[in-house]
């Protein structure tokens, strides 16, 4: 009996680190998206360079569906342990759907060995998928030629042969019928990872100084931005430690650059004191915080939304900050772009919270419009009477930089007077503390409200934030109920004040968070007094799957 797969195909590749799964992902993402298929992929990797067991999910679909599914239509195990590994993962959700009888025996390694080397098995697998999807043979050939253009001829040819062998094997498979619609729009879509979206957003925000210290999963943004150094006039520097990173970035803003740092939990924790300095000297600062499961080293290559509390309160003393957490690639681009303007305008740190799932996932998305992009610079030329911390109505003092004008630009980590010099005057202290907080009121006016999707007349409201947007959204769509809406926050702090109206409108409020303590629910309670007791939490290092969220929501309605 043939399996029919319509509109939505989930392929999972599993094998050891170093077996080249990433290569398959690279090839298929461009190729499939390029031929008009909606494409999504996400990986779960062990914290090791070789061996272990990793898996990558590729999702090919008729309509945009960039969310993680538990269901596996096609499992391609490149290693013996793969099935055992994934059986477990699947058991979380849809075990019953795994059809063990459906195993089709394709000897990837056998085929690859015919070409003289087992390393080609990944390319064979990629070919197989192309065959199943009936990709045009010429298109495939052209693509491969381009893809391996930089490699030497022998390697290119071997790969081409490998992919073709796989391709024919795939075409020959009668056990599976796949029908997925292609569309022309997809061809002109962008194909990006979360890390790409953040990096492009930073460039679009005028970022010209990037520093960081390698740390999964934030490194991809550091690497991307470093690769942009020449093209976009960016100083990109790897620093000795994260304390150096944050203090360097503050120096860069002070001297007139637009600086971003990129880090993860432990590295961000080390920046706490520097963040407090940022608050005191009222410097702009962009921090990209890609979360991973803690505490401590935790699960370094996996995903979690567990650092919200730290983002909210890191740094001693009181000072304002802005926290953003994009849900989609488009949002990642726009919010990061905007973060630079907001940070410059209000002279406060802006934190962009992503996570491993967000930065490493790839999908196609409509081309980002750039006509509304403005680099808003708030630097002023100083004169002899310039005072860096002049007390103003709204708390914002015009920001000068050294060397631009005749004034002294003095910033101080101690409490200071308007000129930036140390003071211990208790009245001045209050004026300065109040000034710093006054800015909060203006910031609130700039809040981008949460996205409400699903029913307008909801009785059930599902709250989520950051990277889970696509997953939760698809889950609620999947439930097909007229009573449910999803409220997704990408502007996290300061929290939108009218949220309480949305909560009160629902008889049933559910929160979905990829952490163990429902940190966003705590923020909501702390802001509104509203306690969300229905919590869907996950903290085993993996992202939510669409099915899982559906099932859990159903339990609550």
């Amino acid at each position, binding site marked *: 009996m043939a399996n029919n797969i319509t509109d939505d195909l989930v392929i999972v590749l599993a094998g050891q680190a170093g077996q080249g799964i990433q290569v398959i992902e690279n090839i298929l993402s461009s190729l499939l998206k390029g031929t008009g298929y909606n494409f999504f992929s996400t990986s779960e990797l062990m914290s090791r360079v070789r061996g272990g067991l990793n898996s990558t999910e590729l999702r090919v679909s008729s309509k945009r569906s960039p969310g993680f599914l538990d269901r596996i239509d096609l499992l391609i195990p490149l290693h013996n342990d793969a099935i055992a590994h994934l059986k477990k993962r699947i058991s979380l959700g849809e075990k019953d759907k795994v059809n063990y009888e459906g195993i089709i025996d394709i000897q990837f390694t056998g085929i690859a060995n015919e070409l003289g080397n087992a390393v080609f098995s990944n390319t064979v697998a990629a070919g197989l998928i192309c065959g199943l999807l009936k990709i045009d043979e010429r298109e495939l050939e052209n693509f491969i030629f381009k893809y391996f253009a930089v490699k030497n001829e022998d390697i290119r040819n071997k790969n081409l042969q490998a992919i073709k062998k796989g391709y024919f094997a795939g075409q020959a498979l009668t056990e599976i019928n796949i029908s997925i619609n292609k569309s022309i729009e997809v061809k002109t879509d962008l194909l990006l990872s979360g890390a790409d979206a953040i990096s492009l957003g930073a460039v679009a925000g005028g970022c010209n100084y990037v520093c960081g210290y390698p740390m999964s999963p934030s490194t991809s943004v550091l690497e991307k931005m470093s690769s*942009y150094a020449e093209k976009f006039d960016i100083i990109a*520097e790897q620093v000795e430690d994260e304390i150096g990173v944050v203090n360097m970035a503050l120096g860069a803003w002070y001297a007139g650059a637009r600086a971003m740092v990129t880090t993860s939990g432990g590295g961000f924790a080390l920046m706490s004191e520097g963040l407090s300095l940022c608050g005191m000297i009222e410097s702009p600062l962009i921090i990209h915080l890609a979360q991973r499961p803690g505490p401590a080293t935790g699960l370094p290559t996996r995903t979690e939304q567990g650092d919200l509390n730290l983002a909210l309160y890191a740094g001693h003393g009181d000072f304002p900050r802005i926290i953003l957490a994009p849900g989609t690639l488009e949002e990642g681009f726009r919010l990061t772009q905007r973060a630079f303007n907001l940070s410059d305008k209000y002279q406060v740190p802006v934190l962009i919270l992503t996570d491993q799932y967000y930065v490493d996932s790839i999908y196609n998305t409509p081309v980002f419009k750039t006509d509304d992009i403005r680099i808003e610079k708030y630097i002023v030329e100083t004169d002899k009477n310039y005072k860096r911390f002049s007390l103003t109505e709204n708390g914002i003092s015009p920001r000068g930089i*050294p060397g631009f004008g005749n004034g002294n630009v003095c910033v101080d980590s101690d409490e200071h007077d308007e000129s930036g010099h140390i003071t211990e005057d208790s009245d001045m202290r209050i004026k300065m503390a109040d000034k710093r907080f006054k800015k909060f009121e203006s910031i609130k006016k700039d809040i981008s409200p949460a996205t409400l999707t699903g029913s307008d007349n909801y009785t059930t409201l599902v709250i989520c934030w950051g990277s889970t947007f696509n997953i939760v959204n698809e889950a609620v769509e999947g439930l097909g109920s007229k009573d449910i809406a999803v409220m997704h926050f990408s502007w996290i702090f300061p929290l939108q004040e009218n949220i309480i109206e949305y909560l009160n409108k629902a008889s049933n409020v559910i929160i979905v968070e990829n952490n163990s303590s429902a940190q966003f629910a705590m923020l909501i309670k702390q802001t509104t007094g509203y306690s969300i007791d229905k919590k869907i939490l996950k903290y085993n290092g993996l992202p939510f799957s669409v099915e899982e969220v559906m099932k859990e929501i159903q339990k609550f309605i």
Partner: protein
Amino acid sequence: MGNIFDFEEKIDIAWCPGCGDYSIRKALLEALQELNLKKEKVVLVSGIGQAAKMPQYINTSFFNGLHGRGLPPATAIKACNPELTVIAVGGDGDMYGEGGNHFLHATRRNPDITLFVHENMVYGLTKGQAAPTSRTGMKTPVQVFGVFEKPLNPIALAISLDVTFVARVFCGDIEQTKDVMKKAILHKGFALVDIFQPCVTFNKINTFKWFKDNTYYLSGDYDPSDRTGAFKKSLEEEPFPLGIIYKSDHRTTFEENISVYKNDNSPLYKREFDIKKLEAEINAKV
């Protein structure tokens, strides 16, 4: 004519009367003036401590950051605007203690900045605990049995890191201090001047007299270009040699290695954003 780096009005200086920091300030003011630097082009950067208060008392721009964290912003400031003269100032606790890792790695980048460290062999601002440079045996309210740690030798350390300008002076000699400061500021690349400075309040051992008695001037024929010789010299203690102990010009600077200055030496803040390039990059992702 007054010194443009000094204030016209009287300022309240928080140092103790008699503190060596006053001499260092005097030398620095004079050095800045004699170098004919433009006031708008000088930035002082410091951490926290008595020494680190220096920028507060010089009439220029400054970044007075966190304890131990003077060098990262100083490096970045110079990198973002190489037209600025960037001078970092700090205490021996600040720069060699809390900030030790930045010291290590800033020297590897070799930004064209100058570092003055006030070596008073004690923590002044926090009232008298041992600094990394405190001499063995010194008792303090924390080191109740006396310091047993080996005092950090910043000169040997800097030479081991191939810092290309390594000097030590005693602020009791304002002339030499000023002279070496000037040379350090003019030096291309990271320059360290470790300045012996009596803390009259908390260091009753390493007093003005002690420094006087325990230092000597390098002789005229001393060759500071030989790294091994300089290392050997740096190991001399009590008396400690004063002067430029190691100097070389074989290293490139951080700014020289930054790609943004390859074809354009204007500071970052002057540059315009080119949206076309962004659009091209976005479109390349189709």
